[in-house]
Structures are given as structure tokens and as C-alpha cells.
């Protein structure tokens, strides 16, 4: 018999009697708190920077004054074509190694952990938010939700090949528990909270 057959046979013989009930998830996620304030506090706590903006012009100005425009900036948002390139979605992902800043938009953000949900259809390339030196993610304030409970309700049956929650910049504490930002991925994360 193949290993698959063997394993499944052993499992069937050894698994306990069926507990058919799955717990009711609707009992969870009822916590009440100020979603925007919590989002900002949690994000700062894990090394990210929340920046409230009214429109894309403010985002452009912020990036102009905080990043070196001589370097390679990429985005998936046509609104930012003035400062970042849009023409990289079909290139070999390895060639993104010199990207200074990636700017993308998130589907939504989660206040309890500041995570931002992004999927490959809005990322341009899967590696884009990881390979850049810095990362900026735009999210509408109305798209902030309280907990992961609501997050998965919102994701529902969403179709994607790849999706991830991004919470803060890449980090490590593997050397004597001292927190260092920028392990392999972005060294910094700006979250533009758009009206």
C-alpha cells in the first residue's frame, strides 16, 4: 500500500470518536474599543509609523520629502505614477532587489494587531512588499476593523493565490532578544491612513 493509504488507514483506526460540533465563532470578537486609535497605538508598538492623510496628494508630498526619489520606487497605484514606477509587474522578481520603496494598498487593516490584509492581485508581484528596503501601505480609515474575527468574516471565500497579513516592518530578536528592525524584508513600514 502507498504511504498515503497506510497513513490514512492508521489515522482512521486510531482517531477518537467523532466530535462533530465545531465551536460557535460568533461568540468571539465582541470587544469594544476605538478602532482608529487602537490601530495607531498597536502599529507604533511594533515599529510601524501611522500617517493620517486626506488624499493622494498628501501621500505624494510625504514620500517626496521622506524618501530619495533618485532611487527605485515602485507602486501598483496609478495615483502615484508621478513618484513611483508602475511598470514592473511582469519583470523577473529577482530584478526588484534594488527597490528602495514599495507602495501598495491593503484591502483592510485590523486594529487589534495592526495587520494589513493584502493579496497578490493588489501586490503586483508577491515578493514586492518583502524585497524592498522600505514599505508603505495605504488603507482607508473606513476599512479598519476591530479583530481577526471580523477579518476572516470579511475575507470569507475571497479568491487569491497568495495573501498575507503584514504587521509592521520585518524584524528579529534572535540576538539576545534585542529587537532589530529590518531582518530580511522592509526596514520600515509607513501606513497611510486615508480619509
Amino acid at each position, binding site marked *: 500500500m502507498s504511504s498515503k493509504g497506510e497513513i490514512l488507514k492508521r489515522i482512521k483506526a486510531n482517531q477518537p470518536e467523532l466530535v462533530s460540533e465545531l465551536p460557535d465563532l460568533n461568540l*468571539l470578537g465582541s470587544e469594544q474599543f476605538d478602532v482608529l486609535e487602537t490601530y495607531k497605538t498597536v502599529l507604533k508598538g511594533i515599529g510601524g509609523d501611522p500617517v493620517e492623510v486626506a488624499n493622494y496628494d498628501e501621500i505624494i508630498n510625504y514620500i517626496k520629502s521622506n524618501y530619495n526619489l533618485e532611487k527605485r520606487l515602485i507602486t501598483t497605484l496609478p495615483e502615484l505614477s508621478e513618484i513611483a514606477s508602475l511598470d514592473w509587474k511582469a519583470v523577473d522578481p529577482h530584478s526588484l532587489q534594488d527597490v528602495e520603496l514599495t507602495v501598495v494598498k491593503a484591502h483592510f487593516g485590523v486594529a487589534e494587531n495592526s495587520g494589513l490584509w493584502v493579496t497578490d492581485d493588489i501586490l503586483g508581484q508577491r515578493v514586492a512588499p518583502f524585497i524592498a528596503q522600505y514599505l508603505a501601505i495605504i488603507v482607508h480609515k473606513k476599512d479598519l476593523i476591530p479583530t481577526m474575527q471580523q477579518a476572516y468574516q470579511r475575507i470569507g471565500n475571497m479568491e487569491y493565490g497568495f495573501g498575507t497579513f503584514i504587521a509592521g516592518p520585518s524584524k528579529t530578536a534572535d540576538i539576545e532578544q534585542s529587537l532589530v528592525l529590518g531582518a530580511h524584508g522592509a526596514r520600515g513600514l509607513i501606513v497611510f491612513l486615508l480619509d
Partner: protein
Amino acid sequence: MSSEKIIQHSEAATKFNKDVERVNWHDETLWFVRAKRDKSAHQIADWELLRETASQIKFNVLSNIHDYLVEFEANAQRNGIIVHWAADAKEHNEIVHSIMAKHDVKQMVKSKSMLTEECHLNDYLAEKGIEVIDSDLGEYIVQLRKEPPSHIVLPAIHLKKEDVSETFHEHLGTEKGNFNPQYLTESARHSLRNTFLTRKVALTGVNFAVAETGEFVVCTNEGNADMGAHLADVHIACMGFEKLIPKREHLGVFLRLLARSATGQPITTFSSHFKKPRDGKEMHIVIVDNGRSTQLGREDFRNSLKCIRCGACMNTCPVYRRSGGHSYHNAVAGPIGSILAPNLDMSKNADLPFASTLCGSCTNVCPVKIDIHDQLYKWRQVLVKEGHTPTAKTVAMKTMATVLANPTVFNIAGKSGRFVMKNIPGMVSNKMNKWYDQREMPDVPEQSFREWYKKNSRESKEKGNE
């Protein structure tokens, strides 16, 4: 099983305890992580409900895992993922190797996977001439030092920055004597970036696999799993079959618990959901048994398969903190490792369930409510019955059994014990008494509890009669 000599936990712990300062530091560092876990847990009003929910979901999974696995495989295949099944470590390693061979690739970048540690994949691939680089910083450090990880979440927790500095100086040519973690991390970043950019095959672990959708989730803080997987042509993900959960919505429960229990973070930086390979690229999943189906059949121990590998039970364990992960001679150390290891090999790991004070702290922090200390206690009984106890403990336990079974002997033993401790302390605090190692013995009470109770109950009865 290999016949190499295993150094028993108590012996290894004794060695670890020689450097008092380092032991204290190790103890405090882990306690610091445990304290962060508490703070983080207390911020969630639903915490206990979350634990209970997670535990119930896992019960459901264990009782229905056959069907969930079948469902998962079908959905993963529909997503374009190639699914493999491995009965044991050997088959797991062979499958991984065969994928490498098929693509004629001799190098791999790996992100943290305790399963591949359990299967000794690196050694196996090295023998086949394949170079593996571990990309999680902690794993990378221990790999350069040719050591196994000492903790499932914090692989290099036993090392000081001076140690890392020495290691990097030797292997990466960093400045001698530069202990700055920022500087050291930056050096590793440069070296590993080159690895990510040049590897055609990336291997990752799996934190959760979803039956309903055929996707799997990998959680990291560094983003190393993503850097590897999104740049390689082939992504191999290896999972023990117990990583399965029924539906996507259940991820909400587990992702809320995992990082908070592990390090006190509200969530890991990246919680990546892999559902389909990139166009023209390959994604493989290797589903591994390696003793898990046997554990599933052991009623007293099957709950250990609910483990989500957060490491909280290690961080809180007074024995782990003062004996170090390597003393457990098993890929998974600490309380949960001590339950999993005897399942794999009873005679080799008979010492581990005894490496616990049974204080119950592990059980109290476990996010999926595994009855860890009860299972450790049960393993002791199984191991004693099967004749597997470590010698030092057998003598003590046999004596203990006689004493406890006989009230008169117990009484006399207690009296003489107090007499001996008071008048001839050397007799207790000698090398034969394992309990005395590393401990100050308490002052001896004048009375035993029995004597106190007898007297006081008599007194209170007399009072009541007045």
C-alpha cells in the same frame, strides 16, 4: 533507531548549570518572554474563550482528521499544489531530495521548520551533496555553529551576543569584538539576501493548513519564508498532519493566540497564506506522519497533537529555563517535547517526562489547553511499567512507592527524615540525592503536617465540646 549514546537530561542539565551566571541569564531572558506573553494575553478580553475555542476546534480536528486530510489534499491539488505523503522521517527526506533531484538543484534555502529538524533533513541532504542554508536568523546562527536549535520559536536563545559575534566573525568576517545586535543582524541580512536571490528551491514549514480551501499559512517575523518562496522556482512546504484545521475562518482564532503566546506580539509580522503556485512555478506539500498516528491512538497522549508550537510552555517551565533546550536531546524541547519524544522512541527519551516539576505552569499558559503536566505524569507511569526509567530515578521511585504504600513506614520515614535533616544534614545534601542538586534545603519543621493536624483537630474538637 540509531544507537548513539544519549546524554540524559539530568546529566546535560548539570553541565549547563556549571556556569551559574549564564543559567541565571537564560532563566531571566525566558521569564521576560513569558511576562510579555502575560501582558499581551491580559489585553484580550476574550482570551479564555479563545483558548477554549481553539481547544475545541482541535478536538474536532483530531476526531475527524482522516476526512479533513482527504478534503485538504483534494483542494490543494485543485489549487495546483503537488501533494506528497511520508510515513516517516526517511520517506520525508527522500521526497524532498527527489524534488531537488528532478530539478537538478544542489542548493536550498530553508525557513524555520521544526519538522525538518525532527527528520534530520539537513544531514540527509548534506550526504547527498546538497547545501542547505537556514534563513531564520536564529537558525542561521546555530547552523553556522553546527548546533541544533535549543527552542522552537527562539532557536538561539541559549547564546549571548558575544557568542554570535564570534560566530559571525569566523564565518562572515564581521568585526571582531563588535557585539552590536543591529550590526550583526545587518551582516546576516546582506549574506542571506544573496542566498535568497540565487536559490531555485525554497523549503518552508507550515503553521496551519486549511482543509476547506487547500491553502496553508506560514508565520514569520523576518519575512524569510516569503523571500525564499517568492523568489524560488520551487516551493516545498513540509507539515505534520496535525497542522490541519477545518476552515479558513478558524485561522482567526489561532492567529490571535499564536504570537501572543509565543513572544507577546499581537501577531507575527507576516502571516502568509499560500494557496496556489505562481504561474509556471511549482508548489509541493509533504504531509508527514512519523509517529503521529501512533500518538493519535494513545488516548492519554493524543491531546499533545493539538500543539501549535508557540513555545509558551518552555518559556514558563522552571526546569527548561534552568537546563537549556539542548539538554532535552530532541528537536522539540521543554514540556511538550517531553511528551512527544517518548512516542518516537521510549527507551531513548525515557528521561524526559521526568524533567519536570509538574508544577502545571505549562498547562496554564498553553493556548490550546493541552493537559501537559498531567500527560508528563502519565508518561512516567507508562515508562516505569515498561521498565524504562532513568536509573537515578528508579531507585528513588521504588523507595517512594514502598513508602507511600505503607502508612506506618510513611510515618516513620517522615519522622526519621526530619530527624536526619536536622541532625545529620550531610546525609540528605549529598550527591545521591538528586533533589538537593542546585537547591538550598528548607529548614526542617518541628512537626509533620500529620502530627500538626492530629493535635489541632483534637484541640478544635475539645474546643467544640466545651
